[in-house]
């Protein structure tokens, strides 16, 4: 546990103030509540209260076929629906032993990296909104994000709830307009990132507000099973794309940025650097994508008749490097066409457990920024 000191001396007769931040609050990123005990303006104790968005996702999946829960996984982390689909498809393919053709793998990687761009863009916009920059960075971020969401709509039919991945491939092939537009995006996105950095990364006010705030030491991060950009900002070089070698990521050359101090500024800047690496992966994928099937024959049969998909009894855990951390699906089958048990390892939920330790000794505005830098989405936290 981190050390903290009380500000007031014990011989004063002081009282602490208990405040509840949320659930309706302009910047808690959803319905989330924090019970905070304040001493003056310094935080002495903090307890997060979640569960306002619980929708019974895991139990619902036990009553539907495997493919029927694919649209529901879109709604877990509702900003990055493609990566949720990806993790679930990986888990079930491991369970049933279904192969995926090469073109489908490339399409999956392109969609996953585009989703990473979408998520990180939104996060840096909203972190700066929490700091008080009055929506200007948010609207710049959304302007760029719209271009990627338009691409998703063209291919999958919907901007956010894509429901695009199937067991054994993806649902439909790319339209002829897609790849030229991705190439155009690859040209223009670094310019937008440069402009964003000029606006904010060297802004002294931002640096003064976020450096040395919310420090997360390496050992604590590893022992609390934090994953994702938070872990990498604290100095641990762990990226599941490099560790697990899932789905053809070995063919692409990209680096993984590592932070040093583990404070809010590091977490913000690591995400900016990760976006640049994602653009590199996109560049290579778009050049090398082969032609071919987008779904294996077995997978297509199951997509047409989900009630016939009866994997052998057993269990499988499939995980990916989602933009927020390690997203894992644990599926247990008992031989019928409905899963016996279905569990989601949500990164936002696990990353939230360390909120109190990071916030002690700081003030209320800092707590808001620290919460913003963890990057939670309530759909995932509460499932």
């Amino acid at each position, binding site marked *: 546990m981190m050390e903290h000191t009380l500000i007031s001396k014990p011989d004063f007769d002081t009282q602490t103030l208990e405040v509840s931040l949320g659930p309706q609050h302009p910047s808690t990123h959803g319905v989330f509540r924090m019970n905070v005990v304040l001493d003056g303006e310094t935080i002495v104790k903090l307890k997060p209260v979640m569960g306002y968005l619980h929708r019974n996702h895991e139990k619902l999946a036990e009553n539907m076929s495997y493919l029927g829960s694919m649209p529901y996984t879109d709604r877990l982390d509702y900003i990055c629906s493609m990566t949720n689909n990806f993790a679930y498809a990986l888990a079930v393919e491991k369970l049933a032993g279904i192969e995926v053709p090469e073109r489908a793998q490339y399409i999956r990687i392109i969609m996953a990296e585009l989703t990473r761009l979408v998520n990180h863009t939104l996060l840096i916009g909203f972190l700066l909104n929490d700091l008080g920059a009055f929506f200007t960075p948010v609207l710049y971020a959304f302007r760029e994000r719209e271009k990627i969401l338009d691409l998703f709509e063209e291919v999958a039919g919907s901007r956010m709830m894509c429901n695009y991945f199937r067991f054994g491939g993806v649902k439909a092939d790319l339209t002829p307009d897609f790849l030229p537009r991705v190439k155009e995006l690859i040209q223009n996105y670094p310019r937008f990132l440069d402009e964003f950095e000029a606006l904010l990364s*060297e802004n002294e006010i931002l640096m003064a507000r976020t450096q040395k705030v919310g420090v997360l030491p390496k050992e604590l991060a590893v022992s609390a099973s934090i994953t994702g950009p938070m872990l990498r900002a604290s100095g641990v070089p762990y990226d599941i794309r490099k560790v697990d070698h899932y789905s053809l990521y070995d063919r692409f050359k990209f680096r993984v*940025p590592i932070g040093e101090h583990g404070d809010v500024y590091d977490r913000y800047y690591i995400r900016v650097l990760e976006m640049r690496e994602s653009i590199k992966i996109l560049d290579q994928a778009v050049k090398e994508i082969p032609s071919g099937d987008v779904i294996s024959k077995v997978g297509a049969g199951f997509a047409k008749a989900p009630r016939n998909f009866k994997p052998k009894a057993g269990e499988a855990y499939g995980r990916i490097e989602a933009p927020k951390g390690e997203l894992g699906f644990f599926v247990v089958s008992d031989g019928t066409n409905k899963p016996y048990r279905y569990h989601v390892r949500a990164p936002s939920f696990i990353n939230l457990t360390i909120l109190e330790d990071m916030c002690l000794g700081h003030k209320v505005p800092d707590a808001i920024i620290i919460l913003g830098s963890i990057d939670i989405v309530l759909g995932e936290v509460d499932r």
Partner: protein
Amino acid sequence: MDQLFVHIDQAIIHWAQAVLPDWMAVIVAMKIPIVAIAIFGPVTMMYLTLIERKLLARIQNRFGPNRVGKFGLLQPLADGVKMLTKEDIVPEKADKIAHLLAPILIVIPALLVFAVLPFGRNMIAVDLNIGVLFFLAMSGTTTLFIFTAAWASHNKFSLLGGMRSVAQMISYEIPFVLSVVPVLVVVGSFSTVAIVEAQPGLHWFVFTPWGAVGFFIFFICAVAEVNRTPFDLPEAESELVAGFHTEYSGMKFALFYMAEFMNVFTVSALVATVFLGGWQGPILPSWVWFLLKTYTLILIMMWFRGTFPRLRADQLMGFAWKFLLELTFVNIIVAAIWYEMRSPLNHLTAAAILIVTIIVLFQFNKTEIPKKRIYKYAYAD
């Protein structure tokens, strides 16, 4: 053209003297500037809100309000109607009298200081010979009413906002007041008319070394005094919902808003008067110059709002106490030296002393200044 409003004023007085009985004519003569300010103040504030929304919108790549009237020109009227017809909610445990009085009392100093602003040559409502002192004193009372509003709401968040606001405004009062002192030293009078007349043509005070530093300090303290970004902690929208005016709705909120925008206008006008030469300028009429300078400063304040995040409370006060205050003291001494030397040498001496001071202060505050970082990569090949 330059004396247009003065002629209109005199024409009305002549008409009143001709038509009305004597005592009524006197009252009319006194009331004209009051009526002019009472119309000009709120109308300015209404259209300033519209300009701010449209300016911020264009910075953020979108249209501002453009549905109500062409280019949104009737939007302030729509907002006014909305505020008037809203339900007035007072919390149950709130202090009713203070809750009612706070928004009313906060508008009073905002309106009163219009009286000492020189809008043009011979166009000042009341030529007090302690004009600047009156202005500074009146804008100091705003702090008291903000705290009253926060206290009367009986709400923890509002109270936190109110206390922060008091701390911020007190810390920024001192550099605010003291940075005007060099101008007073050089001019020798508190009256705003005298200050403007001491800057003929283009010899504005901002072009002198102590004037430039003074302008910079005064402008930053002005932004802090009216609670605008980056110093808008008291009404921090994303942290404490809405700070000290959380529990106010309808017309009371409209009054707070009006007071804030009138403060923005008057404090920009004061900066323009004291440092930028008021209504002095070569070709255009005097009141056009005045409005031009004031509105440029207001637009810069709005530009700040669209760009910067907010400072934290302790960093804000650290900035005032550890940097601005020392610089203000040195500025006063430098202005006195400049005034006494009276040769081409005085500019160089003044500039040299100020630059050395700024460098020394940066060195003292080195721990507060953030540094740029360099990041490493893993799996780099």
